[in-house]
């Protein structure tokens, strides 16, 4: 049985159609990235999956249940984090939020404590347990939010922009935790994000939504292939250099300051950063380099363009 199933799902707001005949399903154990521009209908879909919003029409089942009519039952089996909203008790120590949530989910105290200890250890939050939630840093709070959503060991974890505003290190730790959690528990994951890194490290399948419609459903590699999204290698050279047109597997995108900085795009399937770098540095002195990943907005824009709706 699919853990998420939607068929011709529609939600209209006053004048706009936020979700337009959306049909997809997610199987248990999958990790699905759900991406699209702002206002494309991602959050609206999530709210219909969790029984917060009533669909205008169409069919939706979460864990085999009708979320609008069986909201409480769905809430017991699903964990949700809205990156911009908190489910913790602002003026109480973090530990109390876990205790209350455990009781809300009808876990006994021993089970709540054991699960809290485990999550706290994995997320390295021990020192913050006695801190009032309002005093946590954003990174700490987000880890706490995820622990709170996972406390009752849900079958399905839905994360809406979990890494928004986090620094590189916090993002990294969060992703590592999620990978480990999924490996151990087999939790199904549905994730919306603007961060391509989240998708690359966490998801095996990507759904792209455009103006409420599903524009792509497939693997990340398939997505990159479809739109020709390429990584960009930015090379700073010691001296002004003629344009690097002859690097195998790479294409010159741009050359600045008489060739002191050159940007090469390359297809991750055809060549590697190391090969491109080796080729360039055998001929010129390289001072510095950075890699630009295809960003989600870009990928989405290309998808939109490809479907003739940009």
């Amino acid at each position, binding site marked *: 049985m699919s853990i998420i199933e939607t068929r011709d799902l529609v939600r209209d707001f006053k004048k706009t159609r936020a979700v337009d005949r959306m049909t997809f399903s997610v199987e248990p154990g999958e990790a699905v990235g759900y991406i699209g521009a702002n206002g494309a209908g991602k959050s609206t879909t999530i709210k219909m999956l969790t029984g917060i919003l009533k669909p205008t029409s169409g069919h939706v089942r979460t864990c085999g249940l009708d979320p609008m009519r069986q909201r409480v039952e769905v809430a017991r089996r699903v964990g949700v984090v809205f990156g911009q909203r908190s489910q913790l008790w602002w*003026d109480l120590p973090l530990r109390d939020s876990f205790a209350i949530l455990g*009781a809300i989910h*009808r876990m006994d105290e021993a089970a709540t404590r054991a699960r809290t200890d485990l999550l706290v250890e994995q997320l390295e939050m021990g020192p913050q347990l006695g801190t009032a939630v309002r005093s946590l840093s954003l990174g700490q709070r987000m880890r706490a939010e995820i622990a709170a959503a996972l406390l009752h060991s849900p079958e399905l974890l839905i994360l809406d922009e979990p890494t928004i505003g986090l620094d590189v290190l916090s993002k990294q730790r969060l992703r590592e935790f999620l990978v480990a959690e999924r490996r151990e528990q087999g939790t199904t994951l549905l994730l919306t994000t603007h961060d391509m890194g989240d998708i690359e490290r966490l998801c095996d399948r990507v759904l792209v939504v455009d103006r409420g419609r599903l524009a792509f459903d497939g693997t990340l590699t398939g997505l990159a292939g479809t739109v020709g999204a390429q990584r960009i290698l930015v090379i700073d050279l010691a001296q002004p250099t003629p344009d690097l047109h002859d690097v195998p597997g790479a294409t010159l995108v741009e050359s600045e300051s008489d060739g002191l900085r050159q940007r090469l795009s390359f297809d991750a399937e055809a060549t590697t950063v190391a090969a491109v770098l080796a080729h360039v540095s055998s001929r010129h002195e390289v001072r510095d380099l950075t890699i630009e990943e295809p960003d989600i907005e870009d990928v989405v824009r290309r998808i939109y363009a490809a479907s003739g709706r940009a």
Partner: protein
Amino acid sequence: MKTFWLLVRAGFRRHSTYRLALLAGMTTNSVFGFIRASILLAALASAGTAIGGYDAPTTIAFVWWGQALLGTVNLWGFAEVKDRVRTGDIAVDFLRPVDPQIAYLAGDLGRAGINLIGRGVPALLLGALLFDMAWPPSAVSWVAGAVSILLAVVVAFSGNFVINLLAFWLVEIRGITLLWMITGGLLCGLYLPVPWFPDWLRTIANWSPFPSMLQNPIDILAGRVVGDDIASAVGVQVFWAVALLALGQVVLRAGRRRLEVQGG
């Protein structure tokens, strides 16, 4: 039930972290209690007799129990639910396997508890120290008074919860909140005992839920209402508690169907 109790405790602890606010509230309640007691005693003295069943000691009890319950019973209302509807944070409440109304009621009972202990009782004791005050005449009055206070908290919460939920339909409910505060403040018997009202106003008050939020527990605790009348005073409160909680459920359901969570 265990969940409910934990939520009560969480409400208690949440509000006990703001000790300075409790102290400030206690001080204000005491000062106003002193002023009100002096004014009402002067009114009694000029009448030369008990008014509406209130002699001097019961009047003092009326004033100081009123001051003590002012912070306990949420007469002036709260904005938390309204704000959560407006910002869309109410969505988080719907993600939990509990009824939001029950969860907020539990939190409010906890808030009432800390306010009674930290703010109400000290003000009451101060009043008893400064004035000659009537105490509940019997054990029955004490017990019924305690039950009546609990019901008053529930009635005030349930009424305010419904008002807060109007935010599902209205962008701004400040006008309604203000109207509720003014009407409620008068009709609940905070400024003057309801039995002192002119007939027409007393009739209006007695048909409204407001006396159930303050006048009824005070009447029982001040010993003005005794015997069988206690049962009817508490009965009226039970009626309003059940009616307003039921109304809250209806409105909450309608609001949820209507919900349009903005952004994010």
